[in-house]
């Protein structure tokens, strides 16, 4: 085994241990948040008009009569095997509720991510080639402004534009993927665009400065003086060297998109995880809330892990730190 491979494995192993530790803390925090609620959880869930028998029944149902460590272990074991118990307001397993709403939120997030990459990359390359020129200045100012518009305000503006002025979009109409993939994408395109726009601005800003920084470095100057073509310098040297920043920024953007979609789908009246969460909050459905939080955090933790590994492949120096 070469030294390089061993270092790779060691780095991946360390990161994996970190992943497990983070998952442990994340699960603990989620569990703790719902255990330190002041007062009796069952009483809060049922409201002030519940009879003592009802409260006692719910306590047993939720396992609240058991000691804390036992409850934590049961909960964690359930979380990792996909068994989070029943939602207290829908009376069906939490996991099936989440699975039912996932296509909306996930589809929207993936669509938004594709938009972010497809728009911000070419734009940042274009802008960074001639920083300070008129094209770059316009892009940069536009980026600042878009960055500052909250996603739900953008959604409202897009709704007015698309359904009020252009008549190309009907609000709150969601087509599930089973009934034709094209319609599914079409029904999610506008909300995805609303989430993507500020993130395009953010990615553009970071990528632009990463490329400009590379362009100004000594090795690029040397390559120019040696007569390498601009295209070759850019494709073979500048672009690979800005990969690390792009991996980092895409990861950040993706976890932002997941959080942002919770609000945006509410503006567009889409039946996704955001609405489920609000229903859970409204009905004080703690099993459902904790399940959703844990799974969304789980996705983010895995995302960060993958991005760390990818970054170490793109720039092996990271492994040595």
């Amino acid at each position, binding site marked *: 085994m070469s030294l390089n491979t061993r270092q790779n494995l060691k780095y991946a192993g360390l990161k994996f241990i*970190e992943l497990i*530790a*983070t998952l442990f*803390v*994340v699960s603990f*925090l989620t569990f703790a*948040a*719902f255990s330190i*609620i*002041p007062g009796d959880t069952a009483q809060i869930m049922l409201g002030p008009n519940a009879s003592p028998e009802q409260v006692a029944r719910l306590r047993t149902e939720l396992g609240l009569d058991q000691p804390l460590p036992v409850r934590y272990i049961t909960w964690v074991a359930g979380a990792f095997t996909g068994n989070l118990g029943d939602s207290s307001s829908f009376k069906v397993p939490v996991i099936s509720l989440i699975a039912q709403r996932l296509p909306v939120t996930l589809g929207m997030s993936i669509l938004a991510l594709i938009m972010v990459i497809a728009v911000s990359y070419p734009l940042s390359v274009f802008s960074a080639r001639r920083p300070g020129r008129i094209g770059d200045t316009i892009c940069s100012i536009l980026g*600042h*402004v878009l*960055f*500052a*518009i*909250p*996603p*739900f*305000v953008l959604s*409202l*503006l897009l*709704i*007015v534009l698309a359904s*009020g002025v252009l008549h190309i979009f009907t609000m709150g109409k969601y087509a599930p993927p089973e009934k034709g993939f094209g319609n599914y994408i079409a029904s999610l395109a506008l909300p995805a665009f609303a989430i993507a726009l500020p993130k395009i601005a953010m990615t553009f800003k970071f990528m632009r400065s990463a490329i400009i920084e590379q362009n100004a470095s000594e090795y690029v100057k040397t390559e120019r003086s040696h007569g390498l073509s601009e295209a070759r310098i850019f494709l073979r040297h500048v672009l690979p060297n800005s990969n690390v920043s792009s991996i980092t920024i895409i990861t950040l953007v993706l*976890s*932002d998109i*997941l*959080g*942002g979609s*919770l*609000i945006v789908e*509410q*503006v567009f009246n889409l039946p996704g995880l955001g609405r489920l*969460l*609000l229903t859970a*909050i409204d009905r*004080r459905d703690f099993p459902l*809330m904790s399940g*959703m*939080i844990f799974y*969304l*955090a789980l996705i*983010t*933790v895995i995302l*960060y892990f993958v991005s760390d590994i990818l970054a170490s492949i793109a720039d092996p120096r990271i492994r040595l730190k």
Partner: protein
Amino acid sequence: MQSKASSFRARTFFITGAVFLGIVLLAFVMSLICSPYDPNATSAREILLPPSGAHLFGTDNFGRDVFSRILDASKYTIFISIAGVAIALFLGVLSGLPAGYFGGFPDRVIMLFNNSIMCFPGILLALVAVAVFGPSMFNVVWALGLVFAPTFARVCRAGAMELKTRDFIMHAKVMRVKPVRIMYSHILPNLMPQLLPATVIGLANMTLFESGMSYLGLGVQPPDASFGKMLADCKAYVLTAPWLVIFPSLMLIFYILGLYFLSEGIRVSYSGRSDS
């Protein structure tokens, strides 16, 4: 010495930011001393009036004066962002500096907690905290403060790690200055170039979060006005009464944009100084 180009850039950012922020700050001051109407007073006879001399920004579906409500909303927005960032900054400095300065085991533990908090989509964490402890402005502030603390902790940790090998810190150590004093009176002031823009950006991001939460009905509670809630309530009237959308959106954007430009100005003026 600062280069001419970067000082010009910094000044442009500062001026643009100041203009945008000035509008919102003016609204804040006006809400305290000369609000034209009671922001929460409803009037059945004056429902959905377009902007006019009597009602500068028109009235909403309850007949409330939109201008007065915007003044009031800017007061809450500014208060929540400043209070939340203050909590986040306090927690971040308190945990980030020792993590970076001591390194080793304390660092690992502190950063594990920080990274774990960062793994929850921020808005989700704040929403749930508010849902569990009840919607109130106080709960919104501390929940957002907690969500934002890791960002500042990271900045402090990175700064402390870099500075602790510098000669002036080494010298302080040799002189047996206590670690607490080294961290807070030697390292912290030198972190301003990173911490100051991060704080201003934090104010902007916190406003984004707060307005989103208020939009969902879990931020500022009615009848108190907030930009997010105003925009949520006007959804049915976006086409018939556009003034209900335009003015709160603009104020919200002005505040966030002003903060972005201000932080950009601070960043450019600091980096211009260290370049030469």
